[in-house]
């Protein structure tokens, strides 16, 4: 989902920690080192990495191209390959038949079947192009705020893992509890009270 789309979803995060060294240099290097790696013609089935907001299929973070005013904007890209089970089954049966014919046997051992299956899947992944998905993020470094333009659970988890690995900073997702604790300006006493809350009953019968 993109910044310039007609409709977006936003998951809010608080960024914990600071980048000590030269900010732009560190960010550029960190993004470049963790940029998406192409897996077409490779046996891997998944690749997760950063890419440029403006050129998602040619990541380039040089010249602080990810800076927009006081915001950093770049994208999480998740490339995935998915082979329908029926295709795997077809190729597995063909490979087993070929092995039986070559070895002049009537049956294969379970381990041998498993090895053939791994090899079939590996070859299919090599031939299959990955489906790319891009999710933009907007990071206001000074305010320690990050908006991830996606609400899918799996993509949010990938973001949290890769962000922490890349920048050595942690992301705290904002939801009712963390919002109350971190962003609402509650006193320590109010925070303690908040932790003791239990659900309220709103309707208490007819009123005169």
């Amino acid at each position, binding site marked *: 989902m993109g*910044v*310039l789309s*007609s*409709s*977006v*979803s*936003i*998951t*809010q995060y608080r960024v914990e920690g600071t980048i000590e060294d030269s900010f732009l240099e560190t960010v550029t290097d960190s993004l470049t080192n963790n940029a998406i790696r192409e897996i077409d013609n490779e046996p891997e089935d998944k690749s997760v990495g950063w890419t440029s907001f*403006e050129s998602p299929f040619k990541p380039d973070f040089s010249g602080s191209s990810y800076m*927009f*005013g006081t*915001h950093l*904007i770049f994208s999480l890209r998740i490339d995935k390959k998915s082979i329908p089970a029926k295709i795997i089954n077809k190729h597995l049966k063909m490979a087993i038949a070929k092995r039986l014919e070559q070895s002049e046997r009537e049956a294969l051992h379970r381990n041998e079947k498993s090895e053939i299956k791994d090899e079939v899947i590996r070859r299919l992944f090599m031939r299959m192009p990955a489906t790319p998905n891009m999710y933009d993020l*907007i990071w206001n470094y000074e305010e320690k705020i990050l*908006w991830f333009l996606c*609400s899918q659970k799996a993509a949010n988890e990938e973001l949290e893992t890769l962000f922490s690995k890349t920048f050595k900073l942690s992301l*705290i*997702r*904002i*939801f*009712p*509890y*963390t*919002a*109350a*604790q971190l*962003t*609402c*300006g*509650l006193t320590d006493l*109010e925070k303690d*009270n*908040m*932790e003791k*809350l*239990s*659900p*309220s*009953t*709103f*309707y*208490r*019968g*007819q*009123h005169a």
Partner: protein
Amino acid sequence: MLDVSVAYNRYTFLGHEFLTWLWYMIETDTQKLLDPKAELEDMYIGNRIVLENSSHNRDEVVTIKGDGAGLEEGVIALQKGAKVTEINLVVKAGENEWRFNLKGESLNIGGLKSPETGRVESAEDVEGAVLEKIYLYEKAVDLTNYAYQQFIKSRVSPEWEQVVVKNISRWISQAAKG
């Protein structure tokens, strides 16, 4: 602070109470929800609201959707003990309009449609368009955060049970009478 994954589930009810309170506030005191600094003029419920009732071993979900749909079924659900889990909001400032869904358990903003921005016709237009979009998204995010802040301040105060919940109960009762 509690472990985040534990806290997410334990305090989901706060998100549902927030959206239920939000509906009550929209009907009774909209201006209190709008940060004067944000220069927003009005807010109302859009074309979708979802309520869930998981009390007394129920697992009932009531979804009301459609432009101009009445909320009577929602009021009945409130009387039975349901709370709002998702709401579609419309916010106005002059000619500008924001529409988005707000989910109680996560406070995620979904399907956010902000006012139209200028067309991007060349690479030089991108930065301006992006900054304009951020400014517009910020309005919806800040509105949500401001409203939640109002709610949570009230929720942890001693007046919550004595005053706010009583008023909400009275409002439900009156809304049910039409």
